């Protein structure tokens, strides 16, 4: 039996292409653009193929170097990881097209190579089945994101960049401490093997394990910008180049993905040595993040910061759904992940279009109307409607499903916070949008001429089309996502696939 080598392609393809772009095409921007965009198209095609393969059968395991399971590094393609890779590839394609169309990729060096390395890190983080390997891929995606974050240079961007890097280096340090503690308690780093060994640990001997688990979730909370570890997000997202901020919309989802994976598959509430520890900590933090994000949208002084705080609020909503802990809530969380990534990316692209034409995105800035203002305002309006969770777009459906999944003693808290913050977010976006798009008409001056950049609008339109598709096809999508969530809560499909994986060498007939 041959292993399915398509599983590792989303990691290897960007790695090779990124190196090729740096080494061979360093001096030719147009060739970089052609190869970079073609690489994103190929990655999306492979990711969609993997998604089809994952939804057709049980999780598939790829053993690197053909090592047997607890000893080697392994990749696992299940429905959730395949979905996340496809989401990331689609977003990256739109971002690449946008960066080429607006000329962002020519404002610094190596934009396309960094994008490829970012794809390598993201794909690896979603696909890996090994906890230490997850750390390594986190570092790969972070170091690429450091480069992308300061792309184009400038003092404000460098200053925000240093803070972003310092914050994430502390996060990486915590991650290593957590992994070392985990290894000293359980003696294994493969996620499925960790799950088995943790479940076998007696209830009284879990003190060190609980320390490791709390540290691990703290790290994921840093990545997912959960209060009180959210400080890096607003400054970073507002200072990053527009297309990079749009791509970063998926970076926080890596934290959410890791929480879902570890909370449901590796350390479920039924683990005797841990017990129900994560959800009581996660729920208040998630609701507080949501409140802070909504207030930030209302109080922001630039459009970029308003959108960054909206992205923070969406992480709060997402973690609220994760903390509810039922299969229905997990399905809502996965749906909301898809939705909030696309909605945040649309808004960041709209902010960049405004910034480019207006010479800044300050809400106190008096500026004349901007070129293509109507179209940009429409994109912003659609993105804001989706983000705030108003009908008819997918944000409304996502929030409705989360509210529906909230049962029991937390119901009152979840309902009141989600609904109140939704209202505050609407107010904030209405204020920001009217200041930028309507108040400009008090100035009599004509819009300054600006290139039409049709492909930039096409990229934003592609993401909006994703939102519309998510809304129109919500029924079939939720059937698929619901089955995914059931599988995650049952745990056995993932664990059986990994623990029963045999090296290829063992399945071959003996020679001669």
């Amino acid at each position, binding site marked *: 039996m041959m292993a399915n080598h398509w599983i590792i392609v989303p990691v290897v393809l960007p790695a090779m292409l990124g190196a090729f772009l740096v080494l061979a095409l360093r001096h030719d921007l147009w060739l970089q653009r052609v190869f970079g965009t073609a690489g994103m198209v190929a990655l999306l095609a492979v990711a969609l193929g993997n998604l089809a393969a994952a939804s057709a059968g049980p999780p598939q395991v790829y053993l690197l170097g053909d090592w047997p399971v607890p000893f080697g590094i392994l990749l696992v393609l299940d429905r959730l990881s395949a979905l996340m890779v496809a989401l990331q590839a689609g977003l990256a394609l739109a971002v690449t097209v946008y960066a080429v169309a607006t000329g962002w990729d020519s*404002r610094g060096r190596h934009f396309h190579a960094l994008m490829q390395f970012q794809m390598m890190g993201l794909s690896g983080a979603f696909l890996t089945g090994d906890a*230490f390997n997850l750390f*390594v891929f986190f*570092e790969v995606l*972070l*170091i690429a994101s*450091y480069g992308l974050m*300061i792309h*184009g*240079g*400038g*003092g*404000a*961007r*460098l*200053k925000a*960049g*240093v*803070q972003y*890097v*310092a914050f994430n*280096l*502390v996060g*990486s*340090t915590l991650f*290593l*401490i957590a*992994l*070392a*503690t985990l*290894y*000293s308690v359980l003696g294994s*780093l493969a996620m499925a093997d960790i799950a088995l060994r943790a479940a076998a640990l007696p209830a009284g001997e879990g003190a060190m394990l609980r320390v490791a688990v709390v540290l691990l979730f703290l790290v994921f909370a840093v990545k997912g910008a959960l209060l009180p570890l959210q400080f890096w997000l607003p400054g970073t997202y507002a200072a990053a180049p527009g297309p990079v901020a749009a791509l970063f919309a998926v970076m926080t989802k890596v934290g959410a993905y890791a929480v879902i994976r570890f909370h449901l598959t590796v350390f479920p509430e039924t683990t005797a040595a841990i017990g129900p520890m994560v959800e009581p900590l996660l729920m208040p933090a998630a609701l507080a993040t949501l409140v802070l994000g909504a207030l930030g949208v209302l109080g922001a002084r630039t459009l970029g910061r308003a959108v960054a705080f909206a992205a923070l609020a969406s992480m709060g909503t997402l973690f609220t759904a994760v903390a509810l802990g039922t299969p229905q809530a997990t399905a809502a969380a996965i749906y909301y992940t898809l939705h909030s990534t696309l909605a945040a990316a649309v808004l960041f692209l709209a902010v960049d279009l405004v*910034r*480019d034409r207006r010479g*800044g995105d300050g809400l106190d800035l008096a500026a004349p109307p901007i070129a293509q203002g109507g179209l940009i305002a429409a994109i912003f309006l659609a993105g804001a409607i989706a983000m705030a969770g108003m009908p008819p777009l997918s944000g409304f459906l996502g929030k409705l499903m989360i509210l529906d999944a909230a049962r029991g003693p937390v119901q009152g808290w979840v309902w009141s916070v989600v609904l109140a913050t939704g209202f505050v977010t609407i107010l904030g976006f209405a204020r920001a949008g009217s200041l930028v798009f309507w108040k400009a008409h008090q100035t009599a001056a004509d819009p300054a001429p600006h290139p039409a950049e049709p492909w930039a609008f096409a990229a934003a339109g592609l993401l909006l089309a994703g939102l519309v598709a998510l809304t129109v096809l919500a029924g079939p999508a939720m059937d698929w996502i619901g089955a995914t969530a059931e599988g995650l809560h049952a745990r056995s499909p993932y664990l059986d696939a990994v623990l029963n994986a045999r090296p290829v060498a063992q399945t071959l007939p003996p020679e001669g």
Partner: protein
Amino acid sequence: MEGLIAAAVGGLTAAGVYLMLRQRAFPVILGLSLLSYAVNLFIFASGRVALALPPILDKTQAGYTDPLPQALVLTAIVISFGMTAAIVMMALGAWLHAGDDRIDMTDDDRAAEGRIAGDRTATGDRA
């Protein structure tokens, strides 16, 4: 031996955290480096402290020392080295732009103190 390693990890971590909380980029980077040393020692110790034992199974020896944490530490060292290089370059860039490495001042504060000329405060965003 255990006491020595524990004291070293604790001391490095305490010094690292103290430096991390300073208001200038340079001590923060030093603190991050100290923290990464502490973590490297900690990972090394997570495979149990064993003296004078081979990292493979050997029938003539009384036991073995776990080789996996040593491999993990090697990975962690390489990664933290690369990350430190990255943040040093970015901090240098920020320092060259602003003229100091304080993290609690904006360009407006610096301009108010008259320490940098107005043209250096322009970020050149999309210019």
